[in-house]
């Protein structure tokens, strides 16, 4: 089955799942209210978006300069920097470090890049114990599922389901109270922290000016991952750079505002090296792996380049009517929702993933929500155009030619949409909802509104 067919099949199931819809709505209700309050507290949210967009534009459009600056600063303080063109290379680099260190257990804090390169599979195949420490990611790991959402990985699960999961997998679930369940995970994971030989993190921002990696989190799990194991590895995409340290004064509160409706996230931490002389803890070695994995292909598409501005806040997912109904797993991608639909065709190939561009109402809610002003719905429209140009379908071309003939002749157009439409609707019930119905795609689940007996123009002409 093609990815497109899989998407359609899964979407059909999910859109009819009212329970799922209710869970997502409940999970996001409070977020929506508080997010808007937090936005309103900015002296100018719109100007902040513009400033953020310009800062990211500057970084992405001088990526070579800022990457070299970032790496030079990092290396000067003893950090080992690796470059990976592909996901497989990134995994191989990390496996090499694991073998060198003779590591047996790995603790991970949340990293979407590691999902992208399927790092856990590679590590487990090599015989390592890999544990996700972010609570949501830990839950998804126990369920052998991919994250449902970029920021809220287990948003689609109820406390009852999580309790059952913990009972089955950990043999410990005192109640379905979220506090008790969190405590169970805390206890299990604390042990893993103390044992782990190696810690792996992702990153939110890379500061070129000072050679620092900025990690945003709420639980303290990334702090522990960067404090206890002897070796630390950070895997990040090359597009994460920001020019200056002060840029974080803008990006940290913006990310928290739209990401999780917070003033600022619980822990925002900057790392600029492994343990330095005179410091008493932290890793002895720090490896930073810079991942391309076709980000340069997206960079080369000047028209869609601004998709690299994305800071992975997930706010476009939260407002997307498609995401909210088909759910995160239907996409079958690492990055789902509108931003996933824009970047996946670049990262994994247009031919297999162009269908995602059609999973949009083009309502523009995503572009409006984006803190760095990525013009998401226009990017989706461009992907549609590109996919049609790459392989046009003869009957679509013909249909649009026919449409142009009618739409360019006003009397004909007017006649067809009034008289013609009414005539058609009179006979419609004969075939309605059957395969013979030309509007079957619409009418199998929906009603077509009847055309008014009098159009506005007719009324206007005939008014006394």
């Amino acid at each position, binding site marked *: 089955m093609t990815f497109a067919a899989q998407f359609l099949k899964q979407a059909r199931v999910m859109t009819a799942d009212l329970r799922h819809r209710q869970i997502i709505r409940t999970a996001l209700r409070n977020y929506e209210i508080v997010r808007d309050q937090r936005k309103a507290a900015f002296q100018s949210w*719109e100007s902040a978006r513009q400033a953020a967009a310009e800062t990211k534009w500057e970084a992405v459009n001088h990526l070579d300069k800022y990457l070299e600056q970032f790496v030079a600063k990092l290396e000067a303080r003893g950090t080992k920097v690796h470059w990976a063109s592909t996901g497989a290379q990134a995994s191989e680099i990390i496996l090499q470090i694991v073998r060198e260190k003779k590591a047996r257990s790995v603790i991970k804090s949340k990293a979407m890049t590691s999902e992208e390169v399927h790092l856990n599979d590679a590590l487990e195949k090599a015989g390592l114990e890999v544990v996700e420490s972010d609570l949501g990611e830990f839950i998804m790991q126990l369920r052998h599922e991919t994250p449902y959402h970029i920021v809220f990985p287990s948003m689609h*699960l109820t406390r009852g389901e999580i309790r059952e999961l913990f009972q089955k997998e950990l043999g410990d679930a005192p109640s379905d109270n979220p506090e008790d369940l969190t405590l169970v995970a805390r206890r299990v994971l604390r042990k893993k922290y103390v044992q782990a030989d190696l810690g792996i993190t992702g990153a939110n921002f890379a500061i070129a000016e000072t050679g620092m990696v900025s990690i945003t989190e*709420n*639980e303290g799990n990334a702090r522990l991952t960067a404090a206890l194991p002897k070796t630390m590895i950070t895997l990040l995409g090359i597009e994460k750079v920001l020019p200056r340290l002060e840029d974080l004064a803008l990006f940290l509160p913006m990310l928290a505002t739209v990401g999780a409706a917070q003033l600022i996230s619980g822990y925002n931490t900057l790392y600029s090296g492994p343990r330095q002389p005179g410091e008493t803890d932290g890793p002895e070695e720090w490896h930073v792996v810079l991942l391309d994995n076709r980000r340069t292909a997206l960079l080369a598409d*000047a028209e869609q380049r601004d998709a690299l501005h994305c800071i992975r806040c997930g706010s476009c997912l939260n407002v997307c009517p498609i995401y909210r109904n088909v759910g995160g797993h239907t996409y079958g991608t690492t990055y789902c929702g509108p931003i996933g639909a824009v970047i996946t065709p670049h990262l994994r190939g247009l031919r297999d993933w162009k269908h995602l561009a059609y999973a949009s109402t083009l309502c523009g809610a995503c572009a409006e929500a984006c803190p760095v002003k990525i013009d998401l719905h226009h990017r989706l429209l461009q992907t549609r155009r590109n996919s049609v140009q790459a392989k046009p379908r003869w009957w679509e071309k013909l249909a649009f030619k026919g449409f142009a003939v009618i739409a360019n002749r006003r009397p004909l157009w007017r006649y067809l949409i009034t008289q013609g439409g009414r005539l058609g609707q009179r006979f419609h019930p004969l075939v309605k909802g059957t395969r013979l119905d030309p509007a079957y795609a619409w009418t199998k689940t929906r009603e077509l509104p009847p055309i008014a007996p009098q159009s506005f123009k007719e009324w206007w002409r005939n008014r006394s």
Partner: protein
Amino acid sequence: MSERENILTRVREALTVSTPKPGAKQPCKAASATRDFRSLLPAVGATYEEQLALFRANSADLKTDFYCVKDVEAVKAQLASWRDSEKWRRIASHAGSLTEAVSSSLGLPVCRTDAAYSTVELEASDIGLTECDALIAQTGSVLITNRSAGGRALSVLPPHHIVLARRNQLVSGLPEAFQLIKEKYGSNYPSMISFITGPSRTGDIERILVLGAHGPKKLTIFLLE
């Protein structure tokens, strides 16, 4: 050619085609951008009293326990009473004029993290007592570094983090905090700089707030007048 060169070459090739600045092509005038982030971010009062009030309000929101006290004696008294009521058996701390004065007064074994220490011992400590670099009114955050606050783990491993701050350490916002970091450390940055905002938290189960996910369940800040 190394992968570094491969990637940088692809980046440079891609950038031979330029893109307009955001908003340049929009028909209506885009909101103006400024590098003065202070004028965009949530407002902070100009006076010390306003900033203190904002820090207090943010702390209440974040479930941080925030106390303004007269001097170090008041902290000692408060901690002694918690030592008895919560039956502390061991504390963890680091070198510092405030931390040492307080930790030595409690009469408990102290796990010091500014020399080689055992993680197991630190984990078994009831509190982590640290100083800080700044408190930030705009966000209710504590700014620490591994140099000012006894390493990377002390402020995150024990279940209760207690911060001692001086009156002049309160700054208005994040732009000021980054300025402070640059002025204080020059180019010799500590390898970890962390903005701690409230106790450790998670919302991963039904988006319901739970405190004490991996880090401290409690965060207490004393501001010494």
